[in-house]
Every structure is written in C-alpha cells, then in structure tokens.
C-alpha cells in the first residue's frame, strides 16, 4: 500500500519503477520527442517519493539516451526516444514476457504447439 | 537567551498572562474592599480599617500566578528548544521584575481604594501604618509611606514567589514529594516567624521591629525620631533596604533549589 499511484508496487526498487513509468509514456507516444517530462519537484510531490529517488530513476533514462537535460530548463524527451525505447523493449520482450509464458505453460503441461495455436488464435 | 527573555516579557504566556491574572485578582480585591466599605459605612464606629488584603491576599495570588506562569513557560521552553540555563535565568529575572511590578500595582490599588474610602469619610490602612496611632490620615498616602509599603509588599511577594518556584522546581523532579516538601518549608518559615527561632527567626524579628516602629522612619516630622529602638537604628532608607534585600535573599535561596532541580530535569511531557 505504498505509492498511491497506478502502476507502482511495494517490492521493486522505486527508482526502477519511476524509470519504467516514464519509459511507458515514451513508448506509447504519450510523451513526445522534445516534450518536457514532469520535473523532479513535481514528480516527487505528486507521487510522494523522495526526490533523490526520482532523480535516480530519471538518470536511468538519461543513460539510455531516452531523455536529455536542457540547462536551466529541465528534462526533455530525446528526438528518437520512442523508437529507441521500443527497440529496447522488443529486446526485453522475450525475457519479460515470452519466457515466463513458456515456463507457466510447462508448469501446466501445455505443449509448445498448443501455445503456438493459442497465439495464432488470439485476435 | 535574549530570545527567551524577549518571550517572557512580550510573549503571550509570560508577563501578559501574569498581568491578566493579577489584574483580575486585584480587581476582585477592589470589589471586596468596596463591599466591606459599604457594610462598615453604616456603622459610624469605624474611621479607619486595618485591611491588608492587597498586600496579604495579593501576595498569595501573585505567588500562585507566578508559579503557574513559570510552569507554562517551562513547557514552552522544552518545546521551543530553550536551554535549561536560559529558562532558569529568565525565571530569576522575571521573578525580580514581576515582583517589583506587582508591588507597584498593589500600591496603586491601595491608593485608589484609600481615596474611595475617604469619600465616605473613612480611611484604609496598610501594612506600614498598622503600628501607628491617630495620625494615619495625614500619612496614609504620603510618598514615604507608599515606598516603605512597596518594600514590605515586595518582601511578601518575594517570599511567596520563593515557595512557588520551589514547588515548581521540585515537581519537575519528584512529582509526589513536591507538595510535601514545600509544605514542610512553609511550616518551617511559619515556625521561625512565630518563635523567632534560628537565623530566619531573627531576620523576621528584625523586620517586625522595623515595621512596628515604622512611623519614626516614615514620618519623623509628626512622630519624632527615635534615635534608636532596641539598639536598632530606624531610618527610612534602612527600613526600605532591609525589606527589599531580605526579600531578594529569601527568594534567592528557594530559587537556587529550583535552579538545581530544573537543571537536570527531564522534560518529556506526558503520554
């Protein structure tokens, strides 16, 4: 019952969750290229999270090149961020989603073929 | 420290609070005097009344209020990050100054009441005049009388202030023993006074003498000068000084115990 905001949980480190939250907004185009992201002050007050933690999360995106700092003005989404983030997510798609799905299928005795069928049948 | 003293004299819970209490008490005593006046005016027998309510009851109220204000200030100081040392010194300064101010206020009330009584053809006495015979009305509100009386009142106030801070100080360390110990001290003072026993008893005796023969000090032009009574010189300055200094000394002794107690007292509040 920690951060009272959708998408946040109690077990993962908060800075990672913040990075993911911002990244989601970038990947889905909700935050566009050269658009300013919410400031550390705003984010920390709204989410009630220590600003140092917020900064740490934002820095992850800076390191990935998704976000850049304009001196005296704030943090902005990089020009190719949406594509870059999407590529990154695509790479992680296998580890984050495919693997767990196959592990669960194995646990339940669902064969690979059955899984493939389900995937094909999905609209 | 300057900040704390500033609060004691300008803040709401310091002098202002004390003055509000004292004002109410003195006002009440004034009403009491008027009531007595009305009752006695019917009786033509009296032309002077020996009432020491302002000096007597007034001092008791003053002491109680000073104790209450000191305890409140102690709590505020603990909250506000004031060192014990600053609080203790502040209490000492407040004690001397509040007592002086209260004594002055009591003299003012006395004068006003005396004037009111005179309108009805009567006179109100004060501590100093209690030993004097028929010349009261001439000297009742003479400057020397007022000053002498102020000194005596100051002594009384300092005495009760002493008991008060002693109680507050002891309470900060020993919740339950405080009233018992303070009570014992008061009884000791009473006993010393009654029996004139011990050095304290001698002090009281010396002050009593000054009081009894105050007419020679206050109005020598009327009563003549007693070169010396019982081997004690009775000058006006001497009398005033004796009461003021004795008052400060007695307060100082009990204040010292208060200081020692509070210096190491844990002020953690309740619950």
């Amino acid at each position, binding site marked *: *019952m*920690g*951060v*009272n905001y959708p998408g946040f949980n*109690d*077990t*993962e*480190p*908060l*800075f990672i969750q913040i990075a993911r939250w911002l990244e989601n907004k970038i990947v889905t185009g909700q935050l566009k290229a050269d658009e300013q992201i919410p400031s550390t*002050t705003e984010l*920390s*007050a*709204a*989410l*009630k*999270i*220590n*600003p*140092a*933690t917020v900064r740490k999360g934002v820095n992850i995106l800076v390191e990935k090149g998704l976000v850049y700092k304009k001196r005296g003005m704030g943090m902005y989404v990089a020009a190719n961020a949406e594509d870059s983030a999407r590529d990154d997510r695509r790479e992680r798609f296998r580890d984050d989603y495919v693997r767990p799905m196959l592990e669960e299928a194995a646990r339940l005795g669902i064969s690979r073929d059955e899984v493939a069928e389900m995937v094909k049948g999905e609209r | *420290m300057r*900040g*704390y003293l*500033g*609060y004691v004299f*300008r*803040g*709401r*819970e310091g002098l202002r609070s004390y003055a509000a209490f004292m004002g109410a008490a003195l006002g009440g005593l004034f009403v009491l005097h008027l009531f007595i006046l009305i009752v006695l005016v019917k009786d033509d027998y009296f032309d002077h009344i020996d009432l020491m309510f302002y000096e007597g009851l007034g001092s008791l109220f003053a002491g109680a209020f000073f104790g209450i204000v000191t305890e*409140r200030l102690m*709590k*505020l100081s*603990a*909250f*506000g*990050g*004031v*060192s*014990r*040392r*600053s609080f203790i010194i502040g209490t000492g300064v407040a004690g001397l100054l509040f007592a002086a101010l209260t004594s002055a206020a009591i003299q003012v009330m006395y004068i006003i009441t005396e004037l009111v009584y005179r309108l009805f053809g009567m006179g109100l006495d004060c501590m100093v005049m209690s030993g004097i015979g028929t010349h009261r009305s001439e000297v009742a509100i003479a400057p020397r009388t007022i000053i002498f009386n102020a000194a005596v009142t100051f002594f009384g106030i300092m005495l009760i202030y002493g008991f008060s801070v002693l109680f507050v100080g002891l309470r900060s360390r020993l919740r339950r023993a405080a009233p018992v110990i303070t009570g014992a001290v008061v009884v000791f003072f009473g006993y010393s006074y009654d029996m004139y026993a011990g050095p304290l008893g001698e002090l009281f005796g010396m002050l009593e003498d000054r009081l009894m023969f105050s007419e020679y000090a206050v109005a020598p032009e009327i009563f003549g000068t007693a070169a010396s009574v019982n081997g004690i010189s009775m000058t006006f300055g001497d009398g005033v000084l004796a009461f003021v200094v004795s008052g400060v000394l007695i307060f100082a002794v009990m204040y010292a115990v208060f200081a020692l107690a509070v210096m*190491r007292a*844990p*002020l*953690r*509040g*309740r*619950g």
Partner: protein
Amino acid sequence: MSMMEIRSLTKRYGSKTALDDVSLKIAKGSIYGLLGRNGAGKTTLVSLISNRDFPTSGEVLLDGANVKENDRALKNICCMGAEQLLPGYMRVKDVISSMRYFYKNTDAEYANALCEKFGLDPKKRLSRLSTGYRTIAKVIFAMSSGADYIILDEPTLGLDANHRELLYKLIIERFNETEAAFVISTHLIDECAGLFERVFVLREGRLIADEDSDALRRSAYLVEGKTAEVDSFIAGKKVLTRSEVGSFCSACVSGGDVPSPDALPDGLEVSQPTLQQLLIAMTEEG
C-alpha cells in the same frame, strides 16, 4: 553541508538501557526513516536530540557543537512527538504566534495555510483536539518552524488515510523548498518507504541498520516452497525469519546476492520483501 552527528549515544534509566552506543549522522538535504518496534529507543533518541532529556554517555553534535544546553544549536532543531508537551489550554494560533520567539525563521503564513489544508481550526485549544488533530497541530508547528533539522516522531498517529497522503505530499513539498533534514519515525513503513532516502533501524536500543533504503531492501530476499527444500537451501545462510504453513515454509534470508530464478532449485520461489516485511523480520523477538 550542515550535519548532525550522534556519537556513541547511550541512555540508561536505572537498570534499563534505552539506547546502547548509537552512532549515526543526519545531513541537511536528506529525508531519513527512523524505524523500530515500540520501546526500541526511537522516542528516547528524539528526546536526547531535543535536549528534553540528557544522555548517560555520548553526545549529539550539530556542526561540531554539542547540542546539550546549547541555545544556538537548538534553534535549528525542531522535534515533535506523541507526548503532551505544550500546555493544553493554549490555542493553535497562540502557539503559532509564539513560535517566532523560539524559532527565528518560523513561517506563520505557511503554518496557517497548513491548518487550512488539514481543516484544523486555529482557534481551538490543544486539549480540545482529537488525537489525529493534535498530531496534525504538532506536525504543523514543526514543519513551519523553519528549523534545519525537523524530527517527526510518529506524525501519522491518529491520522486518517486522506490526511496521511496529504502529509506525505506536504513533507516532500516542504523538503523540496527548504532542503531541511527530515527524520521521520513511523510504524506505517510501507506507506512511507518512498519518502526515505536512508533508513535507521533500532532494535532494543541498538542501531542494527544505517543504510540507503533501496540497498537495505535488496540485502534480503524471501524464499518459499516445500519445507524440506527451503530448509536445505537456507542451511548456512543468515535467516531472519522462518514460518511454516502446512508442509510449506517461507524464510527471509539476509546477505549474499539475491539468487536468480534459474539458480534456484525447482519448486522454490524467490521474491523481494517490502520494507515493512523486511523490518518485521529484522526486529522479530529472539
């Protein structure tokens, strides 16, 4: 950077040791969590910082100067706690207007704004307030004091959920504005975990943790599965707690790297504890 240093602080009451050789540092510009069970010594620590009580040994230093009986240092420290310190007959607005004599940088306007935000009537006497509102009043006093070091001991006592959320928001906002050091002691750990940059954990008077809050959480993990398998996995490791449910068992293990799911034997699940779960494990009896 202004710094408060607590050095080998010990407090004994007769035969009971409330604080045992506690040393830690509190720097301006950080928010700290002070955690521990009831009676662990948190409130005692706060009373020693605020000069309301004196240490048996050790010292509290502010920028090198001992805080004990030091008016100048104490002007920069404002503590609030569960105890009734202020006279109950005083009105909230009276306390606010008195504060400038004690804390030079008191912001009375801010205090009044906070009263409004919380719905606290400044004309009310302290003794007339409910538990929650009395806590709110004390928090408002501390936060508007303008002190560099603000210690809040149980600022959530009696507050409903809405007020708690409001409080956390206000703390962050005030912190962003003033960069004061905030030390918050609370039992609602998961709610507040996001606020803390660093966390101090007291257990029976001793400091058992002084760490970055993320690092602390990552220092332990939960293992769950069939009892026999869990037990063989945790053998030789530092186990904080272990509990059984039928033929299953879960344990909280501290130290070492968190094993990745691949490295785990089949049938065992590993997960991260919340800060509260970890704290319970660290401060369990025995």
